[in-house]
């Protein structure tokens, strides 16, 4: 994480000068509230005034008990959701200030997402799952497949490109999901409990993979798994939506 003040950054254009890389994502006093209950009268604060900045080359572990706001923070970082107050700057763009269409494009251009339950499309091969984001870019089929096969080889699944998710183990599916998250060469990769459904050995393989990814991009992982904390080089702890521990 950077120690720069997030508030000094532009909301629309990241700086391009200087030797330090631009942060992949910046949160400025971000809060997220939900209205619950039949009449929407119950106010739930999922995240409360969290600020952070994540630079490329950072492996950030977000930890905390269930309900502490880990997933909410990841959703905000990945532009899957927008804050109730504060700002999330993804590639210099305020995610709440743009349309849903633009947010989708931001995700396509700058974010890779890995889910706990893999969320691969069961009817598609591993190759097609990985190539899915490239479809939106209008990349020709041959090129899509070549890039997907290349990534699958790099995650050790070069001999599984034609297998469907149902024919792969949990660890293999999660590696396919990581490859899919990387296929657009994102600046930021967020992973929500990526080892939550894996045994310890398979989880270690996936974490090693994420560690390699983090060498030249920002990786943010939310997890209960102590192994994630051991693997990460930065840590952020949440409790009741507030940041309670930061090792920066």
């Amino acid at each position, binding site marked *: 994480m950077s120690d720069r003040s997030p508030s000094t950054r532009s909301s629309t254009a990241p700086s391009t000068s200087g*030797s330090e*890389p631009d942060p992949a994502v910046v949160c400025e006093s971000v809060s997220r509230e939900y209205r619950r209950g039949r009449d929407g009268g119950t106010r739930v604060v999922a995240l409360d005034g969290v600020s952070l900045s994540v630079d*490329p*080359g950072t492996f950030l572990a977000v930890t905390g008990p269930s309900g502490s706001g880990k*997933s909410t923070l990841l*959703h905000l970082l*990945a532009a*899957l*959701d927008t804050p109730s107050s504060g700002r999330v700057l993804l590639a210099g763009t305020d995610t709440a200030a743009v349309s*849903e*269409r633009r947010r*989708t*494009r931001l*995700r*396509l*251009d700058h*974010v*890779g*997402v890995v*889910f706990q*339950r893999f*969320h691969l*499309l*069961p*009817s*598609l091969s591993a190759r*097609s799952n990985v190539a*899915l*984001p*490239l*479809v*939106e*870019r*209008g*990349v*020709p*089929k041959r090129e899509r497949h*070549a*890039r997907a096969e*290349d*990534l699958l080889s*790099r*995650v*050790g699944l070069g001999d599984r490109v034609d297998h*469907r998710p*149902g024919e792969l183990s949990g660890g293999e599916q999660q*590696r396919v999901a990581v490859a*899919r998250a*990387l*296929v*657009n*060469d994102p*600046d930021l990769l967020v992973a929500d409990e990526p080892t939550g459904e894996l045994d310890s050995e398979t989880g*270690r393989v996936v974490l*090693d*993979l994420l560690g*390699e990814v983090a*060498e*030249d*991009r920002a990786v943010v992982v939310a997890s209960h798994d102590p192994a994630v904390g051991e693997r990460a080089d930065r840590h952020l702890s949440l409790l009741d939506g507030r940041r309670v521990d930061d090792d920066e």
Partner: protein
Amino acid sequence: MSEPGAEPGPDHPGSAPDGESARDDRARRDGGSAPTAGGSRRARWLGVAGLAVRRSLSPAGRGGSRQTALTVLGVAVAVATTLVVASVALALVSGPAVAGTDAAYWIVPGGSASSAVTAVEGQRLGRVHATSERIEGFDGVERATPVLFALTRVEADESAPYVLVVGVVAHPGGTVAGLPTDALAPGDPFYANGSYAGTWTGEAVLSTSAARVLDVSEGDPVALGGARGAAAGGVRVTRVAEPAASGVGQFPVALVHLAELQSVTGAAGTDSADQILVRASPGADVRERLAGIYPNSEVLTQGGLLRQRAVDSRLPVAVSVAGLIVGVVVGALVVATALGFELLADAPQRAVMAAVGLSGRSRLWLVAVQGLTVTLAGGLVGIGLWLGAVGLANLVSTRLLDGGLVARLHPAIGAYGVGVALLVALLAVPYLLVLGGRTNALDRLEGS
């Protein structure tokens, strides 16, 4: 990136050099293979469409293969029903003269093509014997025969039902109303150059249904046109035959010599008939010459006659339109309901697509193509069902009910089936788009 758990390989990413972004460095490292934002829109639409087709037809697709199968089956039944109705309607407009003759052209009085089959009243052609002989002299014409239709009582020992009596000039190997003319003496002996004093053959070929209603068999006498027919001369059944083509159905038909029927019906005075059937050599086009034979006459080909009669005849058209409306509405309801449920179940997967960057437009295009694919698949299966249903109906009709073909197969009806499926998709897909557009990525991902 190297194999998981292994040490970083030679292609392992290093830190970005000063002045260059990490993305640029990664792209350089990957040999310039990093994707750019400038992809082709066509490739994008095609890619999403391919994705939709694979998801629609894949047995592992969406966990909703049963819903897909039900949708395909529902559309298939709707399309097949529509096509069967169209086939029956086509059989209705395919009257005996059309379906049961080997003629290439019909010369009929102008005004209505429906006269080609059973115009027992209305305009007729005159001097038909001489005209037919003249036509037979044309290059490319093999033979021509005038045909007179008379819906008249035919008396047998114990019954006198109405029978469609068809008067013809007999030619070896000829077929009219599905019945063979070579069971009659060649030519038209009673005509005798217009004197109507030649040999009265008294021959009649009966369809099986006519023989059944008259309760006669070969060799039995019958009388045409009541007392007048009996006075002119008796008729004896020379052959009972199953009509060779569709369109006759179970309606009783009798084939006799033209001049003998003319004398019974009073048409001998002007030597008139309802039409002249002309058989031409393959490849010969004599339509222009035939058109000049009679003023105010029409020359029809078999295909043209079917089309014109389909338009002129209201009942088959009404039946077809009703079948189309029912089929399209039922098909659209099936698609909207079954695929609608499937879309709701499929929402988490579309949410994943949204999460990885597929735009709303792409996801709607995906839904549209899925709806179209499933509907067209149903249409193709429906065409198969239609073929089977028509074959079965005709088999039952001809073998068990002793009738003719009740439905006709035609390639155009198959193409019509594809059109019906497209119409179903056109009605159902907008509803699916509304449903598909309600997907919220985050809600669906959290709820899955």
